[in-house]
Every structure is written in C-alpha cells, then in structure tokens.
C-alpha cells in the first residue's frame, strides 16, 4: 500500500521558524584551540587566577581524552581547530552594557522575535529571564525583585566577579572537570551561562529562565549553568534555545550542575529547539550536553523535565545523584526526531542514600528519517536500603523510515531495592489517521492529538507558562507533515 507511506512521508516538510540571523558587530576569537585561547577567554572575563588555572587543567586533561563513540549516532569527525571559541556581540568587552537599557536594540529585537521580550514593559510576568547570545549574557530581567529575597540570578561571568566564593565552592562539584570529553572541553572554554543561588528556606517567587541563542557562524557555544538551592529552598528553572539555519553544523557543549541541600527542591525544565538541520541532514546543532544534579541533603528533590525537538544530534543524560537519605530524583523527557535528526538521550539515577526514590518517564517520537535512542542507567548502591525506581520508556514511530532504540542499564547492589521497568513501542498508523478522518478529524489534528496524548505525562510536569508552548512546539515540529 504505497500511498499509505507517502501520506505519512509528507511529515518531513517542516519549517524552522527561528532560523533568522541578527547582524551585529561581534568580538570573535579566530578559530582554533590552544592554551593561549583558553587564557584569552579567561582574560576577557577578568577571571581570578584559580579559575584560569582550573580551565588550563581541564584543557590539558581534554587533550588526552578521546571523543566518545558509544552513542548510537553518526556524524563526521569534528575539527576542533576550525571552531571559534568566543564570540560576543559588541565591539569590545569594555563596551559591554551595564544594564538592559544599554543593550543594542538589535539584540533586544532578536529576543522579541523569539517571543522572549526583555524590555521592562513587555517582560513575561512571573518569569525572570537571563538572555545568553553566543558566548555572553546580554542581560537578566527582574533582578531587583529577586534580590529582595536574597536570590542571586545572574550571568555566570557576573557570578565569578560578585560571588567568587560560591562559584569556587560548587563549580565542578557535580560534574568534575575530568568527567567526559565534552564536559572537560566545556570546563576549559566555557564562556557564559547562568548562575542561581536560592538562600535557606526561600521559595523563589518567579520562574527563572535562561534563553540561549546561537547567532554567529563558525562558533561553538559552551555555556555553564550552576544552580545551588540551599536548605529548604525551592526553585523552578527553565531553559530555552534556538539558532539560525545554516548548512554547517555548530557545536553546543554545555554543562549544567545542580546542587540541592537538605529539603531543597530544584525543578529544571528544558525546551530545546536548536536548528535541527534540513531534510537531507545538512546543518543543525550538535547538542552534546552534560547535565547532572546532586541531592546532597536529606529529603531533597531534583526534577528534570525536557522537551527536545531541535538539534541535528542530541547527546545528553540529565542525571541525579541521590546522596541524601529520602531524596527524590525525577526525569521526564519527550524527545522528537524528525528529518534526519538523531537523539541519544536518557538519564542516570544513582541511588546512594537510604530510601531514595527515582522516577523516569521517557517518551521518544521518531518521524521522517529520525533515529531516537533512550539510554538510561539506574544504579542502586550497596547502602541504598529501601531504594525505589520506576522507569517507563515509550517510543512512538511515525512512518517507516525512522527508528527507535532503547538501552536500559540497571545495576542493583542492595537486595531491598525495588526497580521497575516498563517499555512500549507503538506506531502512528495509516489506519489510526484514517479512523480519525472518518470521524471528521483532519489528518494534522489527528497526528497532533495522538502525539500530544503520547506526551501528556511529561507536558504536565512543565511549568504552566511553558506547557502550552511545548505543545505548540510539538505541533509546529510536525507541521505540514501529513497531506
């Protein structure tokens, strides 16, 4: 039934709506990576000696490492000497704006276009945004209001200047500089990102959000985010990202570290929409990201929610180290691969403390010629008495040229542990679409209905302001799909 597959194949026609380029003057380092480049990046940011040394230590370690080949993805070798490791809008670092009022209007316009207005008047109510453009943060909103509660929310560079003791204490404490090839590279050349500190007992009154935008060509983006929730505090943080459409691949190798002290809770949500490349797999972002949180204190909780619709290749495993007794780790993920996108994503739940609990809900959607892999590790250590894990891993296939793969790893060293794993694979069939048609429902609505139904367990974990956005994003990513 050849026409059946043709109908579904029309899925592949989607348009990336965030693919524009902003023409701004930029201070960009020439391509190439050596110790001098690392020193230059550190110098541009007036970093203290210890941080420069930490970067150099990372760089030297990185030179001895090999790029991982175990992920279930294929790509041409990356030439790390052809990438520029620093690009900042504005001619010179010294001219950097002091406040949002001084920011180049072109940059503000860019964020308007992306639906993340930074001006005072149009800001998103209830959400404080840190806007990162290529290698630097261009501004952070609602800073004063947050300061009233003692909350620190600023760019990483500012944090290094203003709160060096906190940065020094926690940087690399969850993802050590030796951790893995991409995290180590990031440790050497990271440029900016967000820093959050929530003081003891404070419930952050706003959603905190960072919007990452890659703009310049030939550059990589290496940001670093560090969130520390002190005892009994609570914060919800959201990250969004887009990039221009280009024929070349661009590398995005970020590191995110979360630290939750006793009774603290961090909810970290990502709506990842990097340029996915075209139908033939030309261009798109390589999203090689290390995200990890530690539940350091008793009864703390870290929850990762991710909606991954973009990137040519996604390689990330937001993980939780459950050290505190009674701590809770959660991972809710929707990963969509359309076109020729490839995703190898999942999580690691490392149970160390007693009565620690973790939940993993992973929803993979493959359309077009996309390849989607779930890779997850549940590790129950010797002392983790009473640990529990529940994993549910579902794959949805649209059309018959895509693939779904599952690589679950379970290591249990304590006999009292209870570990559950459920997995399903299903396919949106021509018969389902026809059935909806025969009930008056149009094909596109039928597909959206089925996909949203498949994802709802994850969508409902997103902060309310973004749940709708995520759903709309899914619809757009599959738009024009079926005739």
């Amino acid at each position, binding site marked *: 039934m050849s026409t059946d597959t043709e109908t579904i194949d029309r899925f592949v026609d989607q348009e990336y709506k965030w693919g524009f380029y902003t023409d701004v003057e930029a201070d960009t380092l020439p391509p190439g990576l050596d110790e001098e480049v690392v020193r230059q990046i550190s110098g541009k940011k007036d970093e203290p000696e210890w941080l420069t040394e930490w970067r150099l230590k990372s760089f030297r370690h990185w030179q001895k490492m090999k790029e991982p080949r175990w992920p279930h993805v294929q790509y041409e070798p990356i030439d790390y000497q052809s990438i520029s490791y620093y690009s900042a809008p504005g001619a010179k670092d010294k001219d950097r704006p002091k406040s949002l009022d001084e920011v180049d209007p072109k940059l503000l316009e860019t964020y308007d276009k992306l639906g993340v207005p930074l001006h005072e008047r149009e800001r998103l109510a209830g959400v404080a945004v840190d806007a990162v453009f290529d290698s630097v943060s261009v501004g952070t909103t609602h800073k004063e209001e947050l300061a009233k509660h003692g909350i620190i929310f600023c760019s990483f560079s500012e944090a290094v200047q203003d709160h060096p003791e906190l940065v020094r204490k926690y940087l690399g404490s969850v993802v050590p500089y030796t951790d893995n090839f991409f995290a180590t590279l990031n440790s050497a050349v990271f440029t900016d990102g967000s820093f959050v500190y929530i003081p003891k007992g404070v419930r952050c009154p706003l959603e905190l959000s960072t919007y990452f935008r890659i703009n310049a060509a030939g550059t990589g983006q290496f940001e670093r985010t560090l969130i520390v929730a002190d005892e009994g505090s609570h914060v919800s943080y959201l990250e969004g990202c887009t990039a221009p459409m280009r024929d070349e691949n661009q590398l995005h190798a970020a590191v995110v570290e979360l630290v939750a002290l006793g009774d603290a809770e961090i909810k970290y949500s990502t709506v990842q929409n990097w340029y996915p490349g075209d139908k033939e797999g030309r261009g798109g972002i390589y999203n090689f990201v290390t995200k990890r949180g530690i539940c350091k204190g008793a009864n703390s909780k870290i929850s990762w929610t991710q909606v991954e619709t973009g990137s040519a290749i996604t390689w990330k495993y937001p993980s939780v180290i459950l050290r505190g007794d009674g701590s809770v780790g959660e991972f809710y993920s929707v990963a969509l691969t359309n076109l020729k996108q490839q995703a190898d994503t999942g999580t690691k739940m490392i149970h160390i403390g007693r009565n620690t609990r973790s939940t993993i809900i992973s929803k993979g959607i493959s359309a077009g010629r996309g390849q989607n892999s779930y890779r997850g590790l549940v590790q129950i250590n010797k002392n983790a008495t009473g640990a529990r894990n529940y994993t549910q891993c579902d794959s949805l296939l649209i059309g018959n040229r895509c693939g779904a793969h599952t690589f679950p790893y379970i290591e249990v060293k304590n006999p009292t542990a209870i570990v559950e794993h459920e997995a399903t694979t299903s396919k949106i069939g*021509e018969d389902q679409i026809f059935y909806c048609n025969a009930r008056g*429902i149009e094909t596109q609505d039928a597909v959206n209905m089925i996909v949203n*139904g498949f994802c709802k367990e994850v969508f409902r974990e997103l902060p309310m302001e973004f749940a709708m956005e995520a759903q709309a994003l899914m619809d757009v990513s599959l738009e024009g799909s079926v005739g």
Partner: protein
Amino acid sequence: MLEIKNLQAGVNGKAILKGINLSIQPGETHAIMGPNGSGKSTLAQVLAGRESYEIFGGSVTYNGQDLLDLAPEVRVREGFFLAFQYPVEISGVNTTYFLRAAVNAVRAHRGEEELSAVDFLKLMREKIQLLELDESLFKRSVNEGFSGGEKKRAEILQMALLEPTMAVLDETDSGLDIDALKIVANGLNHLKRANNAQLIITHYQRLLNYVVPDHVHVLHDGRIVKSGGKELALELEEKGYDWVTNGELQTA
C-alpha cells in the same frame, strides 16, 4: 441519496470491485451480503475514502455531490458515516476528548456552535444508555481495553453522536453475542428516520432478524449478482452462498 454506478476499485492495480451498481433512497435500509473475499469491506473502505484503494472507474453520487472527490473527513461532516469492521485503538487519546473533537468538527461544518465539555457529556451519557455501555470506558484511550463487542457498540454510539444521513455498517454484527447483537440492532432501529438510510454489510443473516432490510444484495467477486427483498437473506442462509455463486444466476 446514494447512487453507485459501475464502481471499479482495487489495490495495487488489481481490481476487487468490478462494477458495482447500487441506488439507495432516503428512508431505506439495504443489506449487502456476500462470502469472504467478495469485496464487501473494500466497498465500505472505498466509500469512506481510504486512500490506499485506487478507483479505476465509475462514480458515486451522494446527495448530488461526487462522493469520491471529497476528503474522508469532509464525507463524514457531510453526513456519510462508516462503522468500522475493526475499530482502531488510539493509545493516549482519551475517548471522550476524541468523540467531542469529532462531534465538534461535524458541527463546525454545519455552521453550528461547538458543544462545551458539559453539554457534550450530557449528550454522550444519553447515547451511552442507548447502547448500554459502561461509562468508565469513555475515560480510557480510544478503543483501548474495549472488548470486541464493546468496540462494535461504541461504533454505533459514534453514529448516534454524529447523526449521519447515510450510514454504512461494515460487519458490525461479527463477533457479537446475541445480547450485544440485540442492543446494536435496537440502536440502529432507534436511529432510523425517514430522511436517512443505512447500508448493512454482513456475512450472516442473523442481524437482519432484528434490523429488517428493504433490499438485500448479494456481492460476489466484485459484482452484485443478485438483489431482492428481505426474504433473499433467509434464502441465502438456508442454501448457502454456493447457491448464487456457482449455480445458474436468476434475477429475482
């Protein structure tokens, strides 16, 4: 209401329907009977607009429109309904949500206002009683975890909600026990009006004990080889399909 003229259709270039002629007037109930492989389900799917079937020739006129020219979703909005032989399961999509989307799609087409969730629930409860279904089914995903009989009854419930003028029932009786068969028949009779029509496609005669057809047609090898009144169904039951397919064909 429905005028099928010399309809030829099939799959992958191979003809299954080899010239069907059938005329259905408002208020009529027709039954098409035939052995396995005679083209019964193909006819149902072609009429509903399944893309995987090719049309080689002929025409289908529905209320003055070229039915074959309409997209499947437009056909149902125009009042042409197919109850599926094998209702499809749609995981993750709540049945009530799905039915409301269907009803509102049809209403929007007719220029009627969308039903609110509250009004829709009221309407649905009323129809649920008619088909004697368990309300908890409608909290599940579409057709998921429904028994075979529940699926078939749910199809008639959808028909009751969408109020078609021309309904085609593709082997709705297969797999039903006698109680469920009576409920389905009762539903069909209840939905029958002077201005609508039903086309019942079936292998067996037993549903026709409860839903009495005005005309019965025998389909064999892609053609209607015999037509008659309700007594033809009984005759077929008694003598078997060989009677019409092998023997000398007589026109009734």
